[in-house]
């Protein structure tokens, strides 16, 4: 530890993260910072070209309104998201993202992203809100624009710190003052001092045990490097959090987790159980229990899951995507043989690109099992639970809404600012604004960045950073290295020692608790009050043992803190699942002791806050309010 040099970086705005929302934030922040003589620094734990959830690429943009042609309005999108989230959504935030998202998409196209066009030059829609792209290099292109924007402020190395892992927030009273972390490449400890901090570190994966637990452990649907750092940072700063119970479980092609959107929306494929029954038809009556949401089209994502799960858990699996049937229907609908051949060739290209752009493993799985989709169906299955406020989950910080449409209860200051002064959130870091996806996360990063610059202009003082506190945190953050060094020699196995625990084993313990007590895969996503209370009890031991995490090197040191971040996400989740005494999102989780939706008592946000001064958790109910009239 003596070798660790402390590097202090002082800036105006600090952006933490490197994915879609962070890159959106960098582009927008650089523009407004330059106009106002301010500085911007971005910190990414990986290489920005391929960091974040879009690292592999994407085959579609799931959010595009088509405002120019009045294809959709932001109000239409709010109605869709509200229904999909079973009534629990911040309409003001969703509206705000929706009205700006086309602007980000048009920028992507200018930057070089190939977007599919029809004969009239219009974007090809996969569904009402989705457009198709050749997205292998989507992230590279978006990162390039962000880096070019940062370069306009000076040398890139002074504005972008790659491979620096942020552990903790720094606070000055009720205002954020910066962030603290370390390089995973060399023995440098970083103290970033900032007037405002924008959190965009993604969601959380591997909080729950994944389905594949051997070599395929890393094949989660959302990437394994999203480790709950946003949730940890905002919680530790004392910010109020929302929808921590609203996790997401996608149904995807089984094991490879390849995308199903093109098959369902573009090729109109059906899914059936092993007996050829389509539960979206055969179990349609079930939806009436969830009126008005269940009886409104499109059927909410969780309820589609729910209908499939009734079949699956009732012993009617496997579930299949009927690809062959869909291809036959397309072929039958075309006028002649030549046209059919052309159409099917196109489909083959599109279907393989869909996988190759974003889930290459699925292509490998199809090739290794000789799957020709025109000849046989392919299995689909629910994945494990994830925390992803940008998709059909809702978890994130509770942030202030836009002045013009946010009701007064949702507007306490700058747009996208959390309940901590100067702390801004975007993408998976901001909650209850689901279905923003990659494009909406970029747009939200831009909204939050502009707002943060405004905050700085109007609050232009450098918060204090307490030197003793920094030293204390440095010692704490580097402790796993010291623990390993001090104890290692005594044991024949570097991973087995009574005085410490390695981060991977720590993660396995967390995942076992979450899987078995908080409704993971093996429990068919079902839990109850006694299970959750027992899980929270076991989490106390884990939290105590987090003081004994050990790291052999910088890579393991990052893993230690990533898993501490996951543990906090887990606790916020369990506490909120326990708090909400109903089953609001069947298909994402079931409270066996409260199996029904309780519209009368729980048409509310379930929020929580960890109080930094006392270490206590506070649970809060917040009203669901429509857009300001």
């Amino acid at each position: 530890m003596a070798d660790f040099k402390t590097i202090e970086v002082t800036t105006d705005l600090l952006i933490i993260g490197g994915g879609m929302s962070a890159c959106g934030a960098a582009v927008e922040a650089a523009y407004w910072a330059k106009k106002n003589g301010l500085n911007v620094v971005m910190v990414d734990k990986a290489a920005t070209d391929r960091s974040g959830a879009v690292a592999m690429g994407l085959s579609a943009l799931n959010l595009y309104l088509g405002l120019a042609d009045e294809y959709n309005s932001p109000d239409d999108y709010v109605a869709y998201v509200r229904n999909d989230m079973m009534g629990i959504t911040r309409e003001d935030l969703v509206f705000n993202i929706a009205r700006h998202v086309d602007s980000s998409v048009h920028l992507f196209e200018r930057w070089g992203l190939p977007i599919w066009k029809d004969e009239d030059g219009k974007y090809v829609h996969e569904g009402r809100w989705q457009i198709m792209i050749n997205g292998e290099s989507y992230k590279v292109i978006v990162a390039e624009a962000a880096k070019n924007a940062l370069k306009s402020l000076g040398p890139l190395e002074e504005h972008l710190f790659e491979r620096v892992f942020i552990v903790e927030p720094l606070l000055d009273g009720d205002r954020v003052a910066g962030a603290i972390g370390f390089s995973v490449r060399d023995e440098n400890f970083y103290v970033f001092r900032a007037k405002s901090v924008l959190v965009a570190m993604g969601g959380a994966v591997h909080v729950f045990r994944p389905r594949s637990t051997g070599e395929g452990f890393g094949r989660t649907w959302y990437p394994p490097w999203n480790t709950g750092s946003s949730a940890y940072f905002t919680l530790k700063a004392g910010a109020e959090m929302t929808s921590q119970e609203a996790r997401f479980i996608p149904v995807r092609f089984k094991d490879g987790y390849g995308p199903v959107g093109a098959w369902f929306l573009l090729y109109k494929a059906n899914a059936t159980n092993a007996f050829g029954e389509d539960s979206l038809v055969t179990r349609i009556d079930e939806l009436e229990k969830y009126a008005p949401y269940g009886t409104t089209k499109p059927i909410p994502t969780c309820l589609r899951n729910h209908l499939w799960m009734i079949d699956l858990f009732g012993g009617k699996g496997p579930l299949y995507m009927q690809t062959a049937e869909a291809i036959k229907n397309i072929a039958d609908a075309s006028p002649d043989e030549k046209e059919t051949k052309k159409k099917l060739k196109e489909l083959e290209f599109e279907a393989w690109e869909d996988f190759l752009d974003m889930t290459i493993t699925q292509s490998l799985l199809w090739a290794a099992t000789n799957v020709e989709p025109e000849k046989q169906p392919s299995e689909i299955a629910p994945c494990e639970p994830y925390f992803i406020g940008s998709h059909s989950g809702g978890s994130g910080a509770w942030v202030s809404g836009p002045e013009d449409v946010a009701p007064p209860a949702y507007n306490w200051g700058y747009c996208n600012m959390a309940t901590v002064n100067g702390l801004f959130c975007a993408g998976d870091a901001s909650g209850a604004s689901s279905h923003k996806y990659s494009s909406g996360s970029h747009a939200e990063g831009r909204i939050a960045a502009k707002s943060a610059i405004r905050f700085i202009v109007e609050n232009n003082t450098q918060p204090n950073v307490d030197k003793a506190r920094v030293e204390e945190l440095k010692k704490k953050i580097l402790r796993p290295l010291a623990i390993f060094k001090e104890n290692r020699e005594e044991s024949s196995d570097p991973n087995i020692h009574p005085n410490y625990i390695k981060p991977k084993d720590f993660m396995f313990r967390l995942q076992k608790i979450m899987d078995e007590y908080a409704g993971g895969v093996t429990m068919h996503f079902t839990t109850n009050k006694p299970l959750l209370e027992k899980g929270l009890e076991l989490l106390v031991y884990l939290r105590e043992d987090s003081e004994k995490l050990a790291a052999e090197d910088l890579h393991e040191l990052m893993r230690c803190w990533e898993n501490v971040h996951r543990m906090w996400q887990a606790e916020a989740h369990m506490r909120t699942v326990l708090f909400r005494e109903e089953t609001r999102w069947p298909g994402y989780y079931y409270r066996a002791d409260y199996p029904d939706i309780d519209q009368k008592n729980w048409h509310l946000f379930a929020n929580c806050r960890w109080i930094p001064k006392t270490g206590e958790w506070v649970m809060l109910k917040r009203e669901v309010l429509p857009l300001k009239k």
Partner: protein
Amino acid sequence: MPSFVLVKKCDGCKGQDKTACQYICPNDLMVLNPATLKAYNRDPQMCWECYNCVKICPQQAIDVRGYSDFIPLGASVTPLRGSEDIMWTIKFRNGMLKRFKFSIRTTPEGTAAPLGEFAEGPANLNGIELMTEPASLTRSVPRSKK
């Protein structure tokens, strides 16, 4: 074992301070073994099979063998990424081959201008418009109809 390095092809990026795979891996898995000067995946269990190391390797020295949990042996998916497009060769377990070429970008590398050559907006920090709006929206920023 997700991504693995073909030792005969890997040249350790010729002693640069870091290898290309080490630079790009989003999960900090690829490292250079200083003794052998060959790269390796230090924790295949945490690999997402994102293929970024495969795509970036100048020696084409990295391949992916599908997760042993659920992918039978015998297939391969091999990319060759250029500056405008990517070629994929897919070999099935039964020997069938498929080749695809897809566009990856429409502009020369490095040229993404932050404003996308859209006209700047009113540049009002207190206003609703982001940097290139309304131009990049092709209309004024919508207000609620409610």
